[in-house]
């Protein structure tokens, strides 16, 4: 957290021009951070279990594969289905709320259409 001065101002010279502004990916609900933390912990538990059962090479190899899967070389306006990542983490075999809720095209709030399209195409 950047230090705030009088009237809530922030030292932009040190922290950059976007400092102090509400971030795009800032958590808006306490459950958001709880869920993210839980998923991190669960991934760590699985990794520890794998190390104890199969040896230290197993989590290292898996981690390397996941790192490769996350570096998808697509163009800015082409979205990836993340199939390799889902297969490695096991998400292709389970169902979650995000599988049937939260589809962006079914959102009940409408942003400014031009801005939304430009943002999703990466032009903005």
């Amino acid at each position, binding site marked *: 957290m950047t230090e705030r001065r009088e009237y809530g101002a922030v030292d932009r010279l040190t922290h950059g021009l976007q400092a102090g502004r*509400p971030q*795009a*990916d800032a*958590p*808006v*609900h*306490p*459950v*958001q951070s*709880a*869920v993210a933390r*839980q*998923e991190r912990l669960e991934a760590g538990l699985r990794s520890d279990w794998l190390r104890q059962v199969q040896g230290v090479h197993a989590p290292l190899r898996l981690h390397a594969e996941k790192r490769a899967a996350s570096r998808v070389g697509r163009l800015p306006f082409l*979205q*990836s289905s*993340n199939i390799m990542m*889902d297969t490695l983490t096991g*998400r292709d*075999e*389970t*169902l*979650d*709320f*995000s599988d049937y*809720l*939260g589809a*962006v095209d079914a*959102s*009940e*709030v*409408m*942003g*400014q259409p031009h*801005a*939304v399209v430009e*943002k*999703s195409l*990466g032009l903005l």
Partner: protein
Amino acid sequence: MAKNCNFLVIFQCKHQSIVLQLAQYTLRKSPVPDCNRCSCFVRNAALESSGMALPKAVKTGTTICGIVFKDGVILGADTRATDGSTVASLNCQKIHYLAPNMYCCGAGTAADTEQTTKLISSNLELHSLNTGRQAPLSTALKMLAQMLFKYQGHISAALVLGGVDRLGPHIYSVHPHGSVDRLPYVTMGSGSLAAMAVFESRYRPNMELEEGKKLVRDAIAAGIFNDLGSGTNVDLCVITKDGAQMLRPYDVANVKGARQERYRFKRGTTAVLKTRLRKFDVQEEEVVSMDTSEASGSA
């Protein structure tokens, strides 16, 4: 009218607001569009602080319970769903299907219990297809408890899970924050104390089927008649190693009184003073529409 529209949008939003926003923020999603900055939660909070009363979620102020008897388990539930102090549904179903050998009663916010049990039911099916065998009760229990703990109690679902697997019949209670209890008899919901009073005085281990059904019926009836949040009918679900049997309704405890007579007025009660007959000449106009668009037929 604008205010009415806002109300409808927020109402629809509030029910799903927690899981909907979380679904939008999961790692799977790539670029999050700008409209999510003004997300439902932020807007709801702003409206609430400006003095607007937000609608309440439909809760199942409920009595649910379960017992272990000689051959299996019996789950019971009432059928009233409340929206604040209004009865939203007279005959809602609170015993949800999880697997052919497992059922789950749900108390708390109706949408949360419904969505949670449906999700876990789907995950159980996938799990049993993957492993090639029927999932034991502890699998469902772990899935439920871990999910509820992950959401830190914001998913308001208090569940009674019951079923028969290869290890025998079991009853578990799951609280909204993710704690579990394995007991021979459990009750949950706003009428849980009334139902538990019945269980504590009359439960014995290894009861017969009819005795067990009567006990569960009486426990739910205690909740129906002594708790304002529970009402109408008693639903039962009997699960043995041969399968599950849903008895819905098992007992219609609150029958609406039938009218004894016809309470209409007899013809001639109001005296007729004058009669005048007028004939109307009715002319009808029939409009036949012609398709005059450019694309019709040949020009």
